[in-house]
């Protein structure tokens, strides 16, 4: 016989397909539950959490100088050898970075550089749209790092309205101060 009776099921239930009805009820509930798909990139965009490790950024102090002291510890600890730091001595005798390049095509976003940095300078931020058509564009320099977005603060983990910037590098455009919805709350879970 094709259908075997389950342990908990009664013979009456087996006769009237209680198992199949249960399955149908489940899928019917799902059919009329809310859709959870992100309509990324042209309608919605997910905001990463504070802990998200994305595109690196360089912190600056109040005067606009980079925090980096050119100690090269990040370059030493980097497991994939993607950070290049060339230090120099400025007029005040401070050690500063002349060149600070990160090869994003090699980077594995482990965050060890962030841990190793003694000067609170290199961090991994919220930006995750780093696709590019050339490998050269993936080598980011000091000025790119200073301009890159910082770690997510408000609205982290929410999905906000967005539109696709067709002229730019294929990035999404989002407006500030838009309240998004918490995507995890939409997920329908069965107990």
């Amino acid at each position, binding site marked *: 016989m*094709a259908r075997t009776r389950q342990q908990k099921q009664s013979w009456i239930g087996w006769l009237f397909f209680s198992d199949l009805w249960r399955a*149908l009820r*489940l*899928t019917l509930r*799902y*059919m009329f*539950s809310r*859709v*959870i*798909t992100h309509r990324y990139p042209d309608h919605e965009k997910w905001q990463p959490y504070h802990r998200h490790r994305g595109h690196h950024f360089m912190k600056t102090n109040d005067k606009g100088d980079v925090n980096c002291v050119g100690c090269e510890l990040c370059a030493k600890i980097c497991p994939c050898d993607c950070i290049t730091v060339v230090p120099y001595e400025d007029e005040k005798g401070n050690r500063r970075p002349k060149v600070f390049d990160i090869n994003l095509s090699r980077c594995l976003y482990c965050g060890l550089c962030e841990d190793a940095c003694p000067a609170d300078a290199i961090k991994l931020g919220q930006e995750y749209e780093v696709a590019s058509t050339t490998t050269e564009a993936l080598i980011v320099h000091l000025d790119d790092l200073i301009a890159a977005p910082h770690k997510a603060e408000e609205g982290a983990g929410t999905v906000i309205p967005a539109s696709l910037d067709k002229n730019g590098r294929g990035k999404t455009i989002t407006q500030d101060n838009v309240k998004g919805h918490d995507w995890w709350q939409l997920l329908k879970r069965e107990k």
Partner: protein
Amino acid sequence: MENLYVILPMLLKIAVVVAVLLLLPLPLTWLERKIAGHIQQRPGPMRVGWHGLLQPIADGIKLLTKEDHIPSAADRTLFKMAPVVALVPPFVVFVAIPLGEPVTIFGTELMLSLSNMNVGLLFILAVSSIGIFGTILAGWASNSKYAVLGSLRAIAQMISYEIPMGFSVIGVVMLANSMNMMDIVAAQKNMWNVVYQPLGFFVFFVAGLAEVQRIPFDLPEAEGDLGAGYHTEYSGIRFSLFMLSEYLGVVIIGFLNVMLFFGGWHGAPPFIPDTVWLLLKVGFFIWVFMWFRFTFPRYRYDQLMAIGWKVLLPLSLVNILISGLFMF
């Protein structure tokens, strides 16, 4: 000139039926993908048109412009013939399906069916079984293991489920004392047949699912173990003809369920025309078939055979016995 008044409405009706049937798979594929999506909490097609409504048209353009590939080892004549052979029976079936009571336009009575034949039900069952020839030819002509296996399964399934299907209908015929579709619907004016024949409806519904090869009985085109079954080697327009005939099969089974067991166009709320009410019921059944498809897994082959011969066939015979006893 006298003949023209007879032929012209007939030609018009044929044109309308063919056009509607050819276009019907477009909304049905959209509906199927939407239902599949929403059961999995996805939106389904969303990009082409409003909520993806133009997606079937985009798919159609894609299918039409695809390479029409014929395997070198295939039997070319049969290979080209098979999709057409599979497509014709579903169209022919609609000759005998009425869409409502005759309406009077400009003083002449117009039947809402192409033919009001007195053995309509027999005709429908007989012609819809011919559709299997397309499957046999496709599987054989492709000269491919998967296609042959798929068509063999389809044949075995068709034979196993045709019998309970035919038997389950006998109860309905007994109640209506006729095989004419109009009479069968008219006999349900006061009470739908599903009340008198719950067992018959169950057998007919399950056998119908198997007949049109929907999940959980879609073994002939099991993607997992057969590629795509009998149409593995087909591409482009020929493949879409198979899809067309499959969707029309679903529509036919929906129509038969409604006509035989759910009172056809009877029981309409006062503001809905009979024909629209009938189509709404058919749409409900099509929705149920799609809902089933994304709920149940596929039966194993021996289970399929066991259900057909050991469960549905005895049940349909019991149904005839009970109906006979009650009528006696």
